[in-house]
C-alpha cells in the first residue's frame, strides 16, 4: 500500500510513524531470540559478547557449548526425556482433541459451550494453578512423579490447541459430504476416516504442532508433576541457568529455535500443498 497523491500532511506523518512503530514491535519481539544465537557460539563461558566476538575474530567463536550439550549425560538425558514425552502427549492431545471438536460441532449436543469452556480452561487458567492442582490430584491417584503423569499433564495442556484449530476447520466443513458418504453406503467409521478426516487434516496438524511445542517447552507443570527421572530439556535449562550459569543453555536455546522454525515451516508447506491439491474452495 503506497501513499495516494491526495494524502494530507497528517496522513503522511502517520504513514511513516506507523511503519516505525511496526518495526519497533518486531524488534522487541525478535531481538531477544536473535541475540541468543550469536552468543551461543561464544568461545568463553560468558553470557556477554567478548571483544573478540565484536571484532568478528574467528578465535572468539567456537562450538564448545554445542559439544557440551551433545557430550554431557545430563543434557542428553533431558533431551531423551523430552523426545519421549512430547510425541506421546501430542498423540493423546490430537486424538482426544479432534474427537472433542467433532462432537462439540454437532448442534444437538447439550451444553456445548459449557463443555467447550471446561476443555479450553487449561489454556486460560494460570499455569501455576493448573500445575498445583495436578500435583495434588496426581499424588492421590499415584501418577505423581511418573512418566505417564507428565505425559497426561502435557496432553491436558495440548488439548485446547487441538480443539480450537480443529473447530475452526470444521466451521467450513460441508456436512452434506458426510450425508453423501452415508448415502453411498459408507458406515460412520469409514465416513470419518475417508471423508471427514482428510478434509480437517490441516487443522489437526496445526493443532498437533501447537500441542507438541507446548509439551516441548513446558517447565512449570513438569517440575510439579514429574520427578528427577522425567527432567525435560526446559527443566534442565532452568536448572542450568540457576545453578551452573553455563552458556550451554544458549546452544540448547538455539537448537530449539531452529527446530521450531523448521517444524512450523514444514507444516505450513504441507498445509499449502494439501490445500492446493484438494482445491479447498466451496463448490
Amino acid at each position: 500500500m503506497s501513499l495516494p497523491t491526495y494524502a494530507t500532511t497528517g496522513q503522511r506523518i502517520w504513514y511513516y510513524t506507523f511503519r516505525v512503530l511496526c518495526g519497533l514491535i518486531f524488534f522487541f519481539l525478535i531481538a531477544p531470540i536473535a541475540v541468543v544465537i550469536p552468543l551461543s557460539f561464544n568461545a568463553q563461558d560468558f553470557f556477554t559478547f567478548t571483544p573478540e566476538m565484536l571484532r568478528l575474530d574467528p578465535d572468539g567463536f567456537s562450538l564448545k557449548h554445542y559439544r557440551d550439550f551433545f557430550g554431557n549425560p545430563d543434557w542428553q538425558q533431558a533431551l531423551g526425556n523430552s523426545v519421549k514425552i512430547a510425541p506421546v502427549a501430542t498423540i493423546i492431545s490430537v486424538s482426544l482433541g479432534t474427537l472433542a471438536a467433532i462432537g462439540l460441532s454437532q448442534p444437538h449436543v447439550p451444553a456445548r459451550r459449557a463443555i467447550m469452556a471446561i476443555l479450553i480452561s487449561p489454556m486460560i487458567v494460570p499455569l501455576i494453578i493448573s500445575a498445583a492442582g495436578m500435583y495434588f490430584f496426581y499424588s492421590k491417584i499415584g501418577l505423581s512423579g511418573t512418566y505417564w503423569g507428565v505425559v497426561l499433564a502435557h496432553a491436558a495442556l495440548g488439548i485446547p490447541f487441538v480443539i480450537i484449530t480443529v473447530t475452526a476447520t470444521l466451521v467450513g466443513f460441508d456436512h452434506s459430504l458426510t450425508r453423501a458418504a452415508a448415502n453411498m453406503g459408507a458406515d460412520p467409521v469409514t465416513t470419518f476416516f475417508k471423508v471427514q478426516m482428510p478434509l480437517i487434516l490441516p487443522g489437526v496438524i496445526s493443532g498437533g504442532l501447537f500441542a507438541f511445542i507446548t509439551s516441548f517447552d513446558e517447565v512449570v507443570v513438569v517440575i510439579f508433576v514429574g520427578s528427577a527421572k522425567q527432567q525435560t530439556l526446559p527443566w534442565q535449562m532452568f536448572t542450568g541457568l540457576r545453578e551452573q550459569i553455563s552458556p550451554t543453555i544458549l546452544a540448547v536455546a538455539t537448537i530449539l529455535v531452529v527446530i521450531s522454525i523448521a517444524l512450523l515451516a514444514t507444516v505450513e508447506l504441507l498445509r499449502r500443498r494439501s490445500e492446493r491439491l484438494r482445491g479447498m474452495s466451496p463448490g
Partner: protein
Amino acid sequence: MAKQGNSDAFVAFERVQKSYDGENLVVKDLNLTMPKGEFLTMLGPSGSGKTTCLMMLAGFETATHGDILLDGVSINNIPPHKRGIGMVFQNYALFPHMTIAENLAFPLEVRKMGKSERDEKVKRALDMVQMGAFGGRRPSQLSGGQQQRVALARALVFEPELVLMDEPLGALDKQLREHMQFEITRLAHELGITTVYVTHDQTEALTMSDRVAVFNDGRIQQLDPPSVLYEKPQNSFVAQFIGENNTLEGVVTEISGDTCVVRLDDGEELDATPVNVTKVGERTRVSIRPERVEFNKDRLKEGAHTLKAEVLEFIYMGDIFRTRLRVAGNEDFIIKTRNAPDQVRLEPGAQIEIGWLPEDCRALDAS
C-alpha cells in the same frame, strides 16, 4: 408393520408425520405410493415439507409417526448407509479431496468391489454423462454444470433402484438447467430407475415428471400428471402455484351438472366448472389460465357470458403477446396470445369483451 398397502408400490409413505420440536408438524399425514420406474416430483414452496419427506426417505430424518416402505419393507429402522438409495445433493456434495474417478469409485469401494470391475463401472458412468475425459480432475477444477453431471453419475454408479434428487439444478443458469432437465429424465427412463425429485421450480416439475405431488403446509395438495395438474387444479393453492393464473372472486348463483354460474362482486356473471363448490350461495374463487381467455366473440359459444375489460398494458414478448386488463376490479388480469400473422394487437385504453369455455374456468375454494 411391513407388507401392506399396494402390492405394486415400490415406495410408499403411510400416514407419515414429522415434527422437529414435538409441537408443530412439518409433515402432516402423508400418504403416497409410487410404482417402480416412476419419475415423481415433490413440488412446493420452501417450508412445505417436501425436503423433509426426501430426507426421511434417505434416512437422514426419522418419521415421528407412520411407516415408509421400500419394496414392501418398512425402512424406518434401517440406517442411511444400508438403504442403498442414490442421492444427488443440492450443492452436489462431491468430495473435494478426491478426483472425479475416486468420487465415483467411493460407493463401489465401500461395497468391496474388485478394482477392475470398479474401474469399468466408473468409466461407464462417466461416459454416460459425457464426462469420460475428466476422471483425473478434482471437483474444484470443474464448472457447476460439470460438477452436476458428476454428482448424477456418482448417484447412479452403484446402480440403485431408487434415486433421490434434492433441487439438483438450482445453482445452474437457465440454459444449462433446461439441458440438464432433459438429460436427467432421459437417463432415468433409459435406466428404468425410480426417481423422487424435489424442486420449487414448477417448470422443472412439469417438464420432467410422470407425476407431480404439490406440497403445501405439510400436505400433498394434489398428486397428478403434469397436464392434469395444470389444466385441472383441484384447489386454489394448486391453481396459483402452477403456472400463471387469473383469479376472480364471487358467489355461486346457479349449479347445473358440470357447469355453474358465478356472480362476481361487481355484479357481472360468468360460466365456470364447479370443482370444490357444491351449493348455491357459496363464495368461490374462479381460476382461468391466461392463454384460454378469448376476446374474439365469434369463437365463443352461443349465449356464453362475457365480461367487460379495459386494456391497461400491451407487452410484446416475441413469441407471444401479454396483455394486462382490468376485469371486475382486478387490474392484474393477464391474457396471452400467440404472435400469429392475423393476431390483433390490443391498444391500451381499448374496451373489449372477454369470455371463455366453461371447462377452462374452474370455480375453486375461496380460501
